C-alpha cells in the first residue's frame, strides 16, 4: 500500500532532530496553553502565525499540530487540580476528576487522563492515517456545488445545532461572514465594506480576528469578574497506577475513542459533544453507578479519551476536504493558506511529503505528551499557579505584539481592540465565538464555490442541489435539523 511507504518516509522526515525539536516546542507550548486558563490552542496558533513566516511550512505545521494535540492534554490537568474548572471540553472531566483529586486520588485521575489521551490519540491517529488518503481520493471527484453543500452543513452544525442558543450561534456566524467580506473581492477586484480605509482593502487578517475574540475578549471578560485571591490547587495525592486502575480504565479508554473519533470526523463541533456522550455512556455501563458524581475513574478515563480521539478526527475533514469544524482547525487552515497551500483532496498528491511528515509528527507528539504530562506534571502545577494579574497582562501584551507583527501597522491594533470588545460582549450574552472564526475562514471559500457553481450553470441556482452528493448532504442536514427541533421541543414540554 502506497500510503504506508509514504508514512514511513514521513517518519524519516519528522524524526530528524530539527523537526523533533519543533514537535517538542509545539507540544510543550500546547500543554502550557491547555493548562493555563484564559488562553487556548486557537489563539496560540493565531499568535504564532506571523512569527512562523520565517519557518518552512513543514516546521510551522508540526508546531501547530503539537499545540493542537498538547492543548487537549493540558486542559485535563487544570480541570482535575484547579478548584474552579471552566472550559467546555474539559468540564466533564472536572465532574469526576476534581472529586477524585479532592478525595486524595488526584494521581490516579491525572494518570488515567494522560494515558487515556495517549491511547485514544494514538488509535485515532492510526485511523486518520488509514482513512485520510481514501477519503481524499473520493473527495477529488467533488465539484464546487458539493463543497458548497459541505460548507453549509459545517456552518449549520457549528453555529446552530450545538450551542445553547441557535439564534446567537447564527448571529456569531454572520459576524464572522461579514468580517470575511471586508476587503477586495477576489473575483472582480471590487472593494467591499472598506469604508475607504486603505488598511481594510486587503481584508481583516485572521490573526487579528482570532487574537481579538480569544485573547482580548477573554482577558476583558475575566477582568470584569475576576476571582481574586491566591489560585487554589488541589494537592496531588494517592497512588498513580494500581491493578484496579488498569482494570477500570482500559475499557472506558477504548469506548471513548470509539465515540470520539467519528464525532470529530463529522462536522459536529469537535470535542465537547464527544465528552458528554462518553460520560453518559460510562455512567450507564458502570458497575457502580452510585460512584458517579463522587469521583468515578471511568468518568475521567472515557471523556478524556473521547476528547483526544475527536481532536484527531477533526483532522480528517481538515486535511482531506479543507473543511475546518472547530475554531482551532479554522486557524490551522489559515496557517496552511499563509504558505499558499490549500488543505483539501489535492493535498495528499501535491504536498504528499509535507502531509505525511505532519501525520508522523502526530504519533511522535503523542509520545512526547505522555512524558510531559505524567512524570513532569509537577511543572504544570507550578505553571497553573502563575498569579492572575501577570497572566492576563502577559496575554494582552502578546496579543498586541502578535497583532502588530502581522503588518507592523497600528491600525491593526485598533481593529483588534474593536473585535476584542465585541468578543467580550459575546461572552457575556451566550454568543459562542467559534462560529465567528469558522465563518471568517470558510465564508470567502464558500462564496467562491457558490459563484463558480453558478458561473458553470449560467446562473441557474438548481445547480447547487443537482449533484447527488450535494442532495444527500442537504437531506441529512434537514433530517438532523428536524430531529434537533423535535428533541428541543420535547425537552421544553
Amino acid at each position, binding site marked *: 500500500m502506497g500510503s504506508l511507504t509514504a508514512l514511513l518516509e514521513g517518519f524519516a522526515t519528522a524524526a530528524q532532530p530539527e523537526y523533533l525539536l519543533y514537535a517538542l516546542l509545539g507540544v510543550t507550548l500546547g500543554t502550557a496553553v491547555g493548562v493555563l486558563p*484564559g488562553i487556548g490552542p486557537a489563539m496560540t496558533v493565531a499568535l504564532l502565525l506571523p512569527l512562523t513566516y520565517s519557518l518552512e511550512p513543514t516546521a510551522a505545521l508540526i508546531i501547530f499540530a503539537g499545540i493542537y494535540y498538547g492543548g487537549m492534554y493540558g486542559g485535563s490537568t487544570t480541570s482535575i487540580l484547579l478548584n474552579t474548572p471552566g472550559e467546555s471540553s474539559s468540564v466533564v472531566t472536572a465532574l469526576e476528576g476534581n472529586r477524585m483529586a479532592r478525595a486524595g486520588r488526584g494521581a490516579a485521575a491525572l494518570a488515567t487522563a494522560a494515558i487515556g489521551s495517549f491511547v485514544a490519540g494514538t488509535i485515532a491517529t492510526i485511523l486518520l492515517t488509514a482513512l485520510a488518503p481514501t477519503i481524499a481520493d473520493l473527495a477529488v471527484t467533488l465539484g464546487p456545488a458539493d463543497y458548497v453543500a459541505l460548507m453549509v452543513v459545517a456552518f449549520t452544525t457549528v453555529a446552530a445545532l450545538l450551542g445553547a442558543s441557535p439564534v446567537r450561534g447564527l448571529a456569531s456566524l454572520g459576524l464572522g461572514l461579514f468580517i470575511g467580506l471586508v476587503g477586495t473581492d477576489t473575483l472582480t477586484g471590487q472593494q467591499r465594506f472598506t469604508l475607504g480605509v486603505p488598511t481594510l482593502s486587503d481584508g481583516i487578517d485572521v490573526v487579528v480576528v482570532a487574537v481579538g475574540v480569544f485573547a482580548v475578549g477573554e482577558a476583558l471578560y475575566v477582568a470584569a469578574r475576576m476571582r481574586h485571591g491566591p489560585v487554589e490547587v488541589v494537592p496531588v495525592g494517592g497512588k498513580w497506577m494500581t491493578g484496579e486502575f488498569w482494570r477500570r480504565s482500559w475499557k472506558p479508554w477504548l469506548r471513548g475513542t470509539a465515540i470520539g473519533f467519528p464525532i470529530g470526523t463529522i462536522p459536529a463541533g469537535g470535542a465537547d459533544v464527544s465528552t458528554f456522550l462518553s460520560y453518559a455512556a460510562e455512567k450507564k455501563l458502570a458497575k457502580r453507578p452510585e460512584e458517579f458524581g463522587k469521583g468515578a475513574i471511568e468518568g475521567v478515563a472515557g471523556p478524556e479519551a473521547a476528547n483526544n480521539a475527536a481532536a484527531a478526527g477533526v483532522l480528517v475533514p481538515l486535511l482531506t476536504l479543507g473543511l475546518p469544524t472547530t475554531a482551532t482547525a479554522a486557524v490551522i487552515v489559515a496557517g496552511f493558506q499563509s504558505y499558499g497551500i490549500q488543505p483539501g483532496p489535492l493535498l495528499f498528491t501535491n504536498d504528499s511529503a509535507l502531509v505525511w511528515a505532519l501525520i508522523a509528527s502526530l504519533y511522535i507528539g503523542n509520545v512526547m505528551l505522555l512524558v510531559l504530562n505524567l512524570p513532569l506534571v509537577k511543572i504544570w502545577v507550578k505553571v497553573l499557579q502563575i498569579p492572575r494579574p501577570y497572566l*492576563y497582562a502577559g496575554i494582552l501584551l502578546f496579543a498586541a505584539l502578535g497583532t502588530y507583527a502581522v503588518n507592523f501597522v497600528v491600525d491593526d491594533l485598533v481593529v483588534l481592540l474593536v473585535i476584542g470588545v465585541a468578543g467580550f460582549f459575546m461572552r457575556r450574552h451566550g454568543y459562542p465565538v467559534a462560529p465567528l472564526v469558522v465563518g471568517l475562514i470558510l465564508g470567502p471559500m464558500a462564496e467562491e464555490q457558490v459563484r463558480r457553481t453558478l458561473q458553470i450553470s449560467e446562473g441557474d441556482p438548481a445547480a447547487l442541489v443537482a449533484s447527488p452528493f450535494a442532495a444527500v448532504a442537504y437531506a441529512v442536514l434537514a433530517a438532523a435539523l428536524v430531529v434537533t427541533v423535535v428533541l428541543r421541543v420535547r425537552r421544553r414540554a
Partner: protein
Amino acid sequence: MTSSDATSPDPAPPARSAKAEEYVFGALVAALGVFTLVDATTIATRGSMGTVGPRVFPYAVGALLVVTGVAAIVATARGRLGPAEDAEDVDTSVRTDWVTVAKLVAVLVAHLALIDVAGWPVAGAVLFFGAAWTLGAVWWKALVVAVVLALVVQVLFAAGLGLSLPAGVFEGVPLLDG
C-alpha cells in the same frame, strides 16, 4: 457599549441590566446587517446578467445578520437570555466590574498610541504594567516585570527573528534597534 449601568453604584437587579445589554447587542447585530445590505448596493458590478457578482453574498450575510439580530431581541423579550460563558478565573457570583474593563481598554489605547511616538519597548512596558496593576498586582513588581519583558521582546525581535519593532526613544541603541 451600555454606559447606563457602567457607573451606577446602586445594585440594580442583574437580570434587568443584562437584559438591556442584550437588547443593545442584538440591535447592533441587526444594525450591522442593515449597513451590510445598504452598503452592498454601492459595490460596483460589471459583467453580464446570469453570473453572480460581488453583491449577492453580502446581501445574504446582511439578511442573516438582520434576522438573527431581531431574533435575539425577540428571544430576550421572551426572557430567554444568553447564558454568560464559564471560565476558570471567573467568579460568576460577583457583579461586573466595569471600571476595571474601562481601565484595560484605556491601557490598550495608550499602547497603540505610544508605539509610533515612543517606540515599542515603552508602549509594551506601559501595556503590561498598566494591565497587571489594574488587575491587582503590586505596582513596583509589575513595573520591574514589565520593563524587563518589553526589553527582552525587543531584543529577541531585533536579534533573533530579524523583525524590527520600532525602537522609538531607543533609536540607535545597539541590540534594541534592529
